């Protein structure tokens, strides 16, 4: 199975290549990719240099152009596809049907990967994308169990990539407007979720209160580690209960299940984290590379040190295990 690694900057890209990535995925510095955070991402020149470096180490480069084209501004997205192809990207990771149609027509030789943002969660959905646009690989949404994935793999004619480590969307990706409900900026349209421009931290007595837009997302008593106010990971009151209504702050780790994923027919394992620093990328990629090479008994010890890097220092198998639901 290939190891697909994130890079938010050229430095992180180098770290990922050096740490043992089979492919690195990254995006342009604009709204065309789903990690459109300030200070992140690649200029055309930076992408060209990064692709050249990756090539020299026999590593592939995937370019994520995985937001939805804004009506009337499609040229930005079409230009991103044209440039990624021209600069030698080994695959394009796309979510928008209109953009997929453009790519299939203008660049039939380009390898089209379906972004997790497209939310292709079943065989008919994947076959739609394969037949309509010639998709070669689908990144599955994080809403399927491993047995679901195994059944799916038997019914489709393209490769499967799954997220195995990093941040966890609680909601089906590409189908969430929570962020724009609160801030007017969304993952689908702007490539941001819970954007920093709308974040405020406020001290209230001994508590630290985090707010997004006009809403309180969390409140941390003295001594408790504070988190970023990502909407779906906040504490709320529902009926009589108060707490993490959607998900506890934890990140995804399904490395304990890699044998099952391989047997299920998965071709590639993806690490989330283009917004994370280069040191994180280096550490996670090298550890996962070692874990993939190790036997099942050695893996837990290798993975244990990564738990320190995870959100809330806790990890979950998420939807890959049925009881999460």
């Amino acid at each position, binding site marked *: 199975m290939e190891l697909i690694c994130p890079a938010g900057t050229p430095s992180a890209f180098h770290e990922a290549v050096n740490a043992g990535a089979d492919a690195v995925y990254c995006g342009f510095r604009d709204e065309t990719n789903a990690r459109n955070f300030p200070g992140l991402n690649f200029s055309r020149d930076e992408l060209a240099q990064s692709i050249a470096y990756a090539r020299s180490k026999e590593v592939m480069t995937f370019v994520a152009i995985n937001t939805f084209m804004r009506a009337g501004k499609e040229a930005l997205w079409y230009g991103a596809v044209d440039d990624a192809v021209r600069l030698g990207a080994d695959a394009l990771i796309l979510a928008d*049907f209109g953009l997929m149609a453009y790519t299939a027509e203008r660049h039939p030789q380009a390898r089209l990967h379906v972004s997790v943002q497209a939310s292709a969660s079943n065989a008919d959905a994947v076959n739609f994308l394969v037949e309509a646009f010639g998709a070669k690989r689908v990144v599955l949404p994080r809403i399927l169990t491993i047995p679901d994935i195994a059944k799916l793999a038997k019914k489709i004619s393209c490769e499967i990539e799954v997220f195995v480590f990093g941040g966890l969307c609680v909601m089906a990706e590409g189908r969430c407007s929570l962020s724009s409900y609160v801030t007017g900026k969304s993952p689908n349209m702007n490539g941001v979720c819970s954007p920093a421009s709308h974040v405020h931290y406020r001290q209230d007595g001994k508590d630290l209160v985090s707010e997004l837009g006009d809403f309180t997302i969390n409140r941390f008593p003295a001594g408790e580690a504070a988190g970023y106010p990502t909407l779906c990971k906040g504490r709320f009151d529902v009926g009589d209960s108060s707490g993490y209504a959607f998900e506890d702050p934890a990140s995804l780790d399904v490395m304990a299940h890699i044998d099952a994923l391989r047997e299920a027919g998965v071709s590639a394992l993806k690490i989330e984290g283009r917004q994370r620093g280069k040191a994180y990328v280096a550490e996670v990629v090298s550890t996962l590379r070692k874990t993939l090479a190790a036997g099942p008994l050695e893996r837990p010890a290798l993975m244990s040190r990564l738990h320190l890097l995870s959100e809330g220092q806790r990890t979950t198998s998420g939807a890959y295990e049925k009881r999460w639901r």
Partner: protein
Amino acid sequence: MPDSSKPEPSSSAPTLSLGPVPYLWDGPKWRDFYFRIADEAPVSHVTLGEIVCSKRLHFTEPFAADVIERLEAAGKRVHLASLAMVTLERESRHVRAMAADSLWPVEAGDLSALHVLNGRPHTIGPLVNVYNAATARLLSSRGAFSICLPPELPMASVAEIIKGAPDTDFEIFAFGRMPLAISARCAHARSKGLTKDNCQFICANDPDGLPVHTLARQPFLALNGVQTVSFTCQALIGELDELSAIGVRRIRLSPQDCDMVAVAQAHQDVLSGQIDGEEGLARLRTIYPGVPLSNGFFHDEAGAAFVARTRNAASGLAS
């Protein structure tokens, strides 16, 4: 409308359509709701069917035939909505069977429906990501004759899409709590200490959604099984003339647990010029009290916001 600077309405005004009931209502309540819609509501189209959770399908299925018959007898066009999230083989079979056997056009709720409906006349629901005309044209070329656009879209995008896909009818989500997210995990069951697989259908206790408040006790969202909806209620009744002017063909009203006949009548009265948008808003606040109205998405702002138009209207949640 009193404001003469507003665009002229297009020659044929849009009609009203009723979206599927997103919540779990028991069968008889669901049936009686549609009977009354058939008899009294000035809507041209009714889309019905379970979209949120396949576990709920059996609650309303026994009543569907009677409901459809009554709606058609009243002259309503009937469409059947498919599931918004399909992960299980059982769910895939359900969508395939709908596509193959339905006597009524199916509204696609996810990508699998797009696959199995290819080449047949069908419609597209608001949970399929149509953000531009290129996507609309692609879906149209595969048989979609009507598209309900995602509630998240601002007016500029809606206008561009309609302009760029002239062969398709467009519908706008104009009333109801907005669908914001859907998850494999059931937060509704989780809030009662249950899991999705053993949920005991507790979402039936909240026929209008279960409110989520912030720790500052501010109303924020509402849970509807695996779906998260806005606490605010989308209200574009004050923007109907603009929707009409940019070529929107249908105004979708999404059922809440309130007098939906009165909601439809208020919209119809604005469309026909009997009352203005302000009065329409005032009526909605009486018909559906206690839930703030919002229209922020349409004005390219936070979806929870209410952008006042003519006079100093009350503000939404986030303003």
